[in-house]
């Protein structure tokens, strides 16, 4: 196993207590082939009214993180440690009852695959009114009005009629809108959107993103937006977190990360994304290799097997020592800031133009 440098202690929370702070989150699943370290020491913060984008290839632990925040993992088959504080309330050690009070009420989640996320057995209206009736103690009538109002807000035509329809009578886009309406029934303070638009075509995608934006203004809720689509994130998020192999490798505001990326993985991501304005024969350079197995992650910096610049770092630092991630704008890479600067300007930026 790699010799870990002193695992960096959780950086002390700076500034006023942020709305949601995740400190050194570790999530492990045991499967018959061994222990899968899905999330391996992740820390980040989300402020109220702000949107945090989480980007990374599939298998980087994005969805697992957010399911852990909601506490939806089966205690028998998963071990979670570290600290998640939502608006002052610690979640990892919270009891099931407390979590049930929060889910759907203070924090809500929109799932990726609208087709299987809604229950085929109940009408959309009923599935929408359930959380409202539970958390707000509303009557059936009030819940129905609320639901119809939300359906209208998310742009579903004739909401009164569609209230009594079943999910299989909705199209893909409509179903995703219903999912969003369901999540927003109780004006949650924290909204986690797990690739909400992946299954949708571009036009509907834009509508959904604007909708989330408007709702954020209206309710001032914090949004965690998970995607592997950098285009969407650039439009949506305020801050950005790039995840790789269960860890954050780069953190910063959207502008900083997209325009001044400092981690080789982020470079790779940006350069493997087609741009509208780039000319046609511009070569796209995908990142070689495939995401690492979380069963026994590579030693040192998990990205080193695929990193084109590891020989720029003296000695065997990259393959032995895992680079820490600092606070605020930072990247987890052994390259010196100057090296990062020069490589980005010489090699990466021309490709992005």
């Amino acid at each position, binding site marked *: 196993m790699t010799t870990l440098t002193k695992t960096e202690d959780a950086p002390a929370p700076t500034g006023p207590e942020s709305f949601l702070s995740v400190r050194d989150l570790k999530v492990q699943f045991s499967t018959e082939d061994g222990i899968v370290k899905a999330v391996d020491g992740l820390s980040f913060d989300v402020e109220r009214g702000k949107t945090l984008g989480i980007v990374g290839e599939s298998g980087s632990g994005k969805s697992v993180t957010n399911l852990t925040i909601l506490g939806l993992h089966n205690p028998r088959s998963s071990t979670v440690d570290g600290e998640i504080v939502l608006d002052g309330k610690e979640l990892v050690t919270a009891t099931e009852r407390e979590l049930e009070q929060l889910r*759907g009420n203070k924090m809500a989640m929109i799932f990726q695959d609208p087709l299987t996320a809604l229950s*085929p057995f109940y009408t959309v209206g009923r599935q929408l009114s359930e*959380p409202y009736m539970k958390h707000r103690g509303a009557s059936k009538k009030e819940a129905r009005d609320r639901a119809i109002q939300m359906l209208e807000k998310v742009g579903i035509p004739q909401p009164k009629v569609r209230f009594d329809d079943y999910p299989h009578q909705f199209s893909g886009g409509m179903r995703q809108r219903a999912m969003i309406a369901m999540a927003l029934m109780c004006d949650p303070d924290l909204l986690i959107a797990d690739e909400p638009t992946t299954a949708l075509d571009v036009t509907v995608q834009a509508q959904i993103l604007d909708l989330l934006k408007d709702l954020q203004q209206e309710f001032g809720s914090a949004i965690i937006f998970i995607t592997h689509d950098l285009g969407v994130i650039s439009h949506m998020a305020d801050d950005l977190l790039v995840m790789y192999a269960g860890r954050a490798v780069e953190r910063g505001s959207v502008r900083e990360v997209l325009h001044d990326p400092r981690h080789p993985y982020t470079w790779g991501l940006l350069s493997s994304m087609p741009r509208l304005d780039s000319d046609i024969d511009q070569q796209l350079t995908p990142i070689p290799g495939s995401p690492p197995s979380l069963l026994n992650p590579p030693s040192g910096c998990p990205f080193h097997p695929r990193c084109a610049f590891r020989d720029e770092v003296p000695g065997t630092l990259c393959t032995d020592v895992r680079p820490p991630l600092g606070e605020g704008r930072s990247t987890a890479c052994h390259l010196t800031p100057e090296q990062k600067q020069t490589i980005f300007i010489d090699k990466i930026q021309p490709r992005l133009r």
Partner: protein
Amino acid sequence: MLQFILRRTVGALVTLFLIGAATFFLFVAAPSDYASLACGKDCSPQRLEDIRQALGLNLPIAQQFWDFMSGIFMGRDFPTGHCSAPCLGQSFYSGDMVWNTIMDRFPTTLTLTAGGAVVFLVVGVGAGMISAYKRGSMLDKFATGTSMVLSSFQIYFLGPIVLWIFVYSTGWMDNPQYTPITQDPWGWFTGMLLPTLVMASIFTAQYTRMARSSMIEQLAEEHVRTARAKGMSRKYVFYRYAWRGALIPIVTVLGIDLSSMLGGAVVTELTFSLQGIGRLAVDGAIHKDLPMTMGVMLFGAFFILIFNILTDIAYAWIDPRVRLS
């Protein structure tokens, strides 16, 4: 929905007619008929002819079959009197109207079926769900374990033991027998308790295991997790969402079991000396009593067909995606 029910009822009637025909001709193909059996020891051809004549067995088969089937709707007259609308003919052996005999025996079978169903649904499916809910706990292991052992027992083994323990050696309970619920509800309950429990025990095992495995399957579904994400409690999600999906296989098997039980549970009736429909079928076959056999068979087939239609309707009710084609 109505159009579906209409089409299926027509299908059921046709099937009923076909089964009636199949049974009738099967019966005739059997090695001997009632007359030769009843002719007794010193049976002269003359006597054989008299019996056949008296019972109308000398008519052509098609005619006999037509008389029988038309009798069901229009009623028939016999030397001993008229037999009103749902007339299933007159039993050769006992000379009684088959419909009256069946109606006289049906409450016993109904009690066994209804009582048994309540027990194996509540205990069987209940245990299956609980062991799915508390998977891996001692309760789960105990429930699955006992259900497996029970499923290997058979009525004619379990019955005598239960009788020996509760009735013969200790006398805690008196002999199981059927007293109409209208006359003496308590007597009805105690009289039929043992047979119902023993009969249900065989089904309980199957329902426990089926409920458990289909519940586990449903709990792994995506929409169950969404419901949890909405803040619904584990119990609520269990009973509202996972349960609906798990119902389908259970309803299917329930449909088949109930209809076959209503057709008579011969082994239970013989073990506990109860007079149910099952024994009527056996006696009918032994005595070569054609009307009785036809009557009991059609009576059983009726339930099977009705329950099949009900099961299909239940599918559509449980899972709206299933269109009633």
